[in-house]
């Protein structure tokens, strides 16, 4: 089934963790975001962190799927979301078995000053950095692992700059 997001074995009861496998297809982005949002919202995550989580997940998954389209390699994507209420944080991890790609090694694009100067590329990863509170990359056992931390200050007053 196109776009089906399957759930990996459940974390032990009481832990606030979501695990899912995501097919390397653009059609899988929506179901994955919806699954994540439902999980986070059910645990009372605030509006800004919800938006940031969806945005980060979309951009990271879209990047992996784009790389898969270029290489023709099925990257076996896995997503993990950990709630850390004592820290007031959501931790997202996207891992894949595609070719090594470190998003933290890519500089932000030069933002355009005119519509004619606007160029595609790099915008997604820039948004991940702007909308997260920490990002780390690891190459482990033939898999890329990108871990993003998002603060969840309940009752936030607005987006960070």
């Amino acid at each position, binding site marked *: 089934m196109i776009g089906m997001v399957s759930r990996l074995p459940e974390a032990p009861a009481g832990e606030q963790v979501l695990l899912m496998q995501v097919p390397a297809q653009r059609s899988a*982005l929506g179901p994955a975001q919806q699954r994540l949002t439902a999980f986070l919202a059910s645990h009372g995550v605030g509006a800004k962190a919800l938006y940031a989580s969806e945005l980060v997940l979309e*951009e990271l998954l879209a990047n992996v799927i784009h790389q898969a389209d270029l290489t023709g390699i099925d990257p076996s994507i896995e997503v993990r979301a950990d709630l850390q209420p004592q820290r007031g944080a959501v931790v997202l991890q996207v891992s894949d078995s595609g070719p090594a790609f470190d998003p933290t090694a890519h500089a932000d694009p030069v933002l355009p000053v005119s519509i004619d100067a606007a160029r595609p590329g790099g*915008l997604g990863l820039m*948004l991940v950095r702007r909308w997260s509170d920490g990002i780390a990359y690891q190459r482990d056992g033939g898999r890329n692992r990108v871990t993003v931390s998002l603060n969840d200050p309940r009752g936030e007053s607005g987006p960070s700059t």
Partner: protein
Amino acid sequence: MRGRIVELQVEEVGATVVCLRLVGRLDAPGADQIGIRFSAGGSAAGRQVMVDLTGVTFVASMGIRLLIATARAARARGGMFVMFGAAEWVHAVLVDAAIDQIIPLFGTQAEALKSLNVT
């Protein structure tokens, strides 16, 4: 999937303006869904283009790419391209991507129309 669909309505506003009204998510699936119609609606020769973002609940980089590409095409055909009504987080993403620096972004339709010299 409620809330997971983007809808596009193309509306003539007077004789010289076309308004592209978006409702829903301007993410990668959304951009795929409406990209051709959005680009066509925004590329009519000589028309001023106004994009209504009041109904947009989410925007990501693929949606932004669609906005940029359509704005560029509109300008190339001699028309202006403006946007209005972005909600809080949508507005924040557009500002982070500096889109407000290259495509005029207004709070209301009235302000957008005024910028197009249409009352």
